[in-house]
């Protein structure tokens, strides 16, 4: 019995350890039709190497992207056309930032940092579903960590080796 319990504890510890090592979002859920501050937590580099570049892909349906500058990193925004026009407080928006890059930094493997983007989650996004932000960490000498796996229908992020950070979409807040 004790052995079973300790086994279970070990498994939980392993699972938790794995979860900590992943690049994740601070807030795990957010309502649609509202602005949202997405905080990406990067806990380590690529197999011991420091991280020099962090790239975040902005999923379709997420507009009005404003990344927060970081000292020691240069900011780059890749823009492009959306699949359709989104209504942003009465203004139809057809294009905008599709990828955010923080470059030229040096985040050591044994250090931790956060990268922040403020976005608007359009009401077109499916409530109750997960929204994923694929992230790529680039390190010296071509080393890369890609947190880009999106679970299939029957899977959860826990089944994946390199899950993309995601947040659960909630009903639009009422009242106004």
């Amino acid at each position, binding site marked *: 019995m004790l052995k079973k319990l300790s086994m279970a504890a070990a498994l939980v510890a392993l699972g938790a350890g794995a979860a900590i090592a992943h690049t994740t979002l601070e807030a795990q859920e957010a309502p649609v039709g509202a602005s949202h501050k997405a905080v990406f937590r990067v806990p380590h580099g690529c197999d011991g190497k420091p991280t020099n570049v962090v*790239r975040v*892909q902005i999923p379709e349906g997420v507009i009005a992207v404003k990344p927060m500058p970081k000292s020691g990193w240069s900011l780059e925004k890749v823009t492009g056309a959306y699949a359709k026009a989104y209504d942003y407080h009465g203004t139809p928006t057809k294009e905008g930032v599709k990828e955010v890059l923080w470059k030229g930094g040096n985040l050591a493997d044994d250090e931790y940092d956060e990268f922040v983007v403020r976005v608007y989650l359009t009401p077109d996004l499916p409530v109750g579903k997960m929204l994923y932000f*694929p992230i*790529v960490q680039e390190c010296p000498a071509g080393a890369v960590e*890609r947190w*880009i*796996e999106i679970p299939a229908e*029957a899977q959860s992020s826990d089944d994946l080796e*390199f899950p993309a950070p995601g947040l659960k979409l909630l009903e639009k807040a009422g009242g106004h």
Partner: protein
Amino acid sequence: MILACSAWFWFAVAAFAHASLVETSPVDNAVLTEAPATFSMTFSEPVSPLALRLVKPDGSSTSLERFVLRDRRLDVGSPHDLAQGTHVLSWRVISEDGHPIGGSVVFSIGMPSATSPEAAGQIDWPVRTAVWLAKIALYLGLVLGIGGAFAVTWLGRSERSGSLASLVLLGIGLVGAALSVGFQGLDALGVPFERISDAATWQAAMNTSFGRTAVFALLASVIAILALVANGRRGRLLSLAALTGTGLALALSGHASVAEPLWLTRTAVFLHGVTVAFWAGALVPLGLALARRTPSSTGMLRRFSGTIPPLLGCLIVTGLLLGVVQVQEPLALFTTAYGEVFLVKLALLVLVFVLAALNRWRWTEPAEHRDPSAMRRLALSVAAETAIVILIFGVVAVWRFTPPPRALALAAAQPTVVHIHTDKAMANVQLSPRGAGQVEASIDLSTGDFEALNAKEVTLVLAHPSAGVEAIRRSARRTAGENWRIDQILIPLPGTWHVRIDILISDFEIVKLVGEAEIHP
């Protein structure tokens, strides 16, 4: 003759060999978490499907009509409504030698059913016996009937003994050739005897290479009948044409006619058939003439014994050549069904040659001087030879059901093939050489709809968790277009391996294909 020659080259162009199943997806006895989108089977040579059926866990079966042939691989669309439990994919295909092969792949979705549905692909003995008997009848007509007509017109001259016997044998051959088509159709489609009246059954057989053999056999037999009816020069020309037809009919289908190099093996089969028909076909008319002690029987005997040595040489050389091509390894004579049949044929041949030697060196000379006892003994010996020749037909007809060692070796030399097909992407992985050890991996990619898939990076991951082998990862390098290669990857032990192919499509998009590979020892 010119017609025969041009027909010859036309047939010699198609270069195929006896097919064997190399790999399937899902692998046999696989337990899958989800229903597969497609089934795929890879053969050692190009094939065409004859009948594809899926037996469901409740025992009901559906015919699978959606399939794509891509060279050696057959992709079959899966029905969308597959339930949990054990399924049997029953397949039947035909290769260029005209021999249908079939089998079953058993797989389960979720959990294996408590009782498996009946596996198809079992041997239908009544049909198999019918195919065998019709084949013997075909040989009787092609070799003894047509050969007899040739002997009567060329060796007999004024001697007409054996005409009636040849006509009867030709009749047997005609019936055998016609029935063979129907039985071949039953065997090809894997359906029971009741379906013999179906037009589709006959159509299926005519679409195999055996259809050509049947057509040539029927034509040659009719020409041989005309040769017997006609007299003199015209009869001789017609019987020569019929004898050529025997060679063509035999060379147009069967294991030996598809072995490389084709020009050599097909020519050898042709010559083998013609010389057998010349030699064995002369036995019945000659034996009858000697038994009756007709006036011109001695002239016939002289002409026969004068022409036979070079022809017998040709018969033996072509026979040995084909034997070497098919058996390859002497050991295969004892380890394969094909080899065993070959040994039985050889044993019977030794008997025939002993009799033939006795005939030639003991009795031919006195018989030519009309010694009555020598003529009687010679007639008896010729009758015995004929009986053994018919036994040989029975033995040779068994080859229809035994793939030659050459084809078996060809199958063993094929790489291990893993085919994974999902909505997003499709990968065809070849691990060569076959079996465990140091292998080279070649990965061909396309999208789920067979469009070009331009990947950024490709990684192959192999694991065998039940044997305690954790993931072995190797990144592949692009060689050309959509082909990716890993020069060396070690598969430490045989068994069912998990195969995963990670395809990085863009910086932010990855597709992981998961499948299984059966690694042979």
